[in-house]
């Protein structure tokens, strides 16, 4: 089998990515897109933000360029840099510049993880100027109406260092995401994995137990993503208690006692 290599800006999502609507997020996103407003997705990890972006890219028929931010991400990583090739220096666009050039949706995931001086390069793109200054090449890229900037941010970290600056956040239309309520979440798990309803319901119940422990020993409860992981293992024939342990408990804590307590909770359910 051979996989095809495509440039991200040429890659259009063909099949509808499954996304379970929770509220009016699709309508708001579309409205913001039409008005060329940048969008901020707020919410805990694994609650469907990335999936939502894929779904919107499909809906709006635009390529989606995703950048996972990390603390070494520099402005050049986003905008572009000179490389030496065949004895000459050539300019190579970064993902942000490429998105602007091709009218793609640029999604900066976990924006607070990026260095602060990196975050400011998106400012001119995120207000009504909609331009990307490229100082190194002495150019200014102007965004077309198709281009869309979206960022995500998890307010749950509660660390002063990891807070999004006002000057950044006030440029965005904010969409709030959270774990869907029990019935919807079970449905997502079922659709994603093909697991039976009873097991899906118990998994959701287990997730709620861990979310209740947030603040009393856990930093974060189990996300929808982890439930999907556990359900996939169960679907493969792994016992539910083992699946909860390997896919959920191990992922959310390193504390030995907490791990045992979560094991006791899951074995009480299954």
């Amino acid at each position, binding site marked *: 089998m051979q996989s095809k290599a495509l440039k991200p800006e040429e890659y259009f999502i063909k099949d509808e990515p499954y996304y379970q609507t929770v509220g009016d997020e699709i309508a708001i996103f579309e409205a913001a897109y039409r008005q060329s407003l940048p969008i901020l997705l707020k919410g805990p990890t694994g609650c469907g933000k990335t999936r939502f972006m894929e779904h919107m890219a499909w809906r709006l028929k635009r390529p989606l360029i995703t950048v996972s931010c990390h603390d070494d991400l520099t402005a050049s990583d986003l905008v572009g840099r000179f490389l030496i090739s065949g004895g000459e220096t050539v300019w190579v666009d970064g993902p942000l510049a490429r998105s602007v050039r091709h009218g793609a949706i640029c999604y900066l995931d976990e924006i607070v993880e990026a260095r602060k001086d990196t975050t400011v390069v998106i400012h001119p793109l995120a207000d009504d100027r909609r331009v990307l200054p490229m100082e190194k090449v002495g150019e200014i890229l102007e965004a077309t109406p198709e281009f869309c900037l979206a960022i995500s941010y998890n307010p749950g970290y509660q660390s*002063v260092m990891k807070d999004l600056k006002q000057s950044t956040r006030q440029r965005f239309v904010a969409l709030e995401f959270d774990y869907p309520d029990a019935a919807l979440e079970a449905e997502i798990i079922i659709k994603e994995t093909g697991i039976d309803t009873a097991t899906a319901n118990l998994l959701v119940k287990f997730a709620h137990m861990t979310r*209740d422990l947030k603040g009393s020993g856990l930093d974060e409860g189990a996300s929808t993503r982890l439930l999907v992981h556990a359900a996939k293992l169960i679907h493969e024939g792994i016992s539910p208690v083992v699946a909860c342990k390997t896919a959920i408990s191990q992922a959310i804590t390193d504390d030995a006692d907490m791990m045992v307590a979560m094991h006791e909770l899951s074995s009480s359910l299954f």
Partner: protein
Amino acid sequence: MPRPTLTFEEIIERLDVYFDAEFTFIKSEDAAELIIKQPRSIQDFILNLCKRISATNEELAFQFTMNSIRALEAMDQHMVEAWAMTATDNYDRKGLTPAMIVIRDLDNYVHTAHVNACGAVLDEEISILLPFVQGLSGRKLKIAEAEDNHAYTDTETIFLPAITALLEESKDNFLIYKATVAFHWAQIQFGTFRLPFDEVLDCDDPVTQLKKITALETIRLEACIKRELPGLYRDMQILKQKTTDNNEQTHSDNWQNVVDKLSAIDACVNDTLHCLELISDKQLPDSCCYQGVLKLDQVTDIMQKRIEKEKAYFRIALSELAKESLKKNKETTEDTDDNETTTFNIKTRNDKQQISNSLVELELEGELVAIPDHVKELMTSIIVDFGEIPPEHLHAAGPGEYDLKKYEDEMLNPDDVWQGTYHEEGAELYNEWNFKRQHYHKNWCVLRELEIEPKYDDFVEDTLDKHKGLLKSLRHTFEILRGEDKLLKRQVYGDDIDIDALVEAYADVKSGMEMTDRLFTKMHKEERNVAVMFMVDMSGSTKGWINDAERESLILLCEVIQILGDRFAIYGFSGVTRTRCELYKIKAFDEEYNDEIKGRISNIQPKDYTRMGVFIRHMTRIFNGVDASTKLLITISDGKPDDYDTYRGEYGVEDTRQALYEAHRDGIHPYCITIDEEARDYLPHMYGAANYSVIDDVTQLPLKVSDIYRKLTT
């Protein structure tokens, strides 16, 4: 057919033989008095053992018999037997006195030997049981040790026996704890205490009546557990089989009817009341190992206080919510009548399964109101008590209607904070390392951050004057340490092209050599990305010259650190026992060094004891929120971890060592400076994970710190 119990005469007859009463003059009557009250199986068990012991020594057999009932309350029969055998074994090897000690010191025996083998000990399992019960829905419950051997709940805390050793294997004994916890959670969650006990027990035979209620509620609650926690329900059935001999109890049709009724999905306490008349006390099943007892006297008071308190808090919260929504709608609604009470509505999104909090919504004037988390928690607890939010709770409190002080005093109980059931503003919990058990005590220490009042006196000026010379040379050293911008050349990536490198590269290519990819320049701002935290011992043992030395050094250090522009913070620490660890903020990272800070340094006073680990852990937590490439934690103390309780000697040293190790693991450089006239031998061990030095002169301190700086930051 169970055999009839032995009569007093029959017991005396046997004991006289075992004790050889004719010659030893042991009074069989005293022992018989105890045995007569027991069921036949217990009588046989005791007499049998008594006989075996008497073969070794009659006096020992008598003492055993006198303690046997107490022993059976504390341990199961296997362990009582083992206990008796330990005593006779001691007699054989060491004589009567040591053997008697084993019998008399029953409590100690329970705690040590056999329990270690198979029993589950609450002290060790609580760190698992507590998150377990808090993961179950509903009110956040606490767990504590029961004074006697019976589990029960007062609706806020589940009390458990210190030890569970009913079964042979420790994992089964843990399971009994777990089942007990879940059963008492179910009592609270599914409304056992909503029963009108006063009315129901107002009868001729309240003891039997309570037994009947207990039996019926057990059926109902087990059905609830079966629905909510099917996995645990299976385990509970297995436990039941393992702990009762005759597991085949045949029941009448009538009884089966009752079971069906109480197991229905919508069964509630009213059904229990209804069934009360349907059953006779003859057909009650034995109580099982996780069922515990109902201690209603423990419940009433607590429940009443809580209901009153939560109603107050809830209604005040409502009035705040009302105010907010009023603010939002200000433009539309012009005239508002302050005197009229605002009433909320409850909307339940019906999900037949069970009323759970997430399905209850608050409505004000037809509009849904977002419920903040702390109010949600209140609502959960209220629903647990009433099964709903009672209508009279839904009127927002009028101004001045409640005096919250009354409730707040109660909330300051440090033991509550320790249980982690609520978070008092500013109180934080930390683990402590127990080296003997090689594990952490969870949430062991309660730490509060306090303020120091600044004292404006001449101390700062005097200090600066006194150490003029030293200060000058320090300034010089620190100025050299200050870094500058640098242009880094020959980088793989960079902001500009390194022309020199490029020219060379061309030359290389021309002469047929491989071209390097290091062709860029990068501006590297030698920003001193250093953060330093000083942790100053404020324990009573620093009184006198050590305290003076600490304060003087801090003043000098602040002066010179300013030169570097490094971020720094200063905290003092002291306290009494693990529930009162007090941290005094002298300067936080984000505070300017100004006159007020100087005043606080001047007012650093010796307080109580030195528990070290908890403070190092707190500093580590603060540091983890600070973005700096070099983090220095400098402890200044007199070197003796010491507290009122067991934090003395090895325990304290090991916990401190562990905390330092944790800090190190989080990328912090701990450095301990001990001001002491003579170095102690434990210092190298304790500070092994860190560096340390011992000094005896204040003037050495700033010098020492500048040394550390040079070492770690350049």
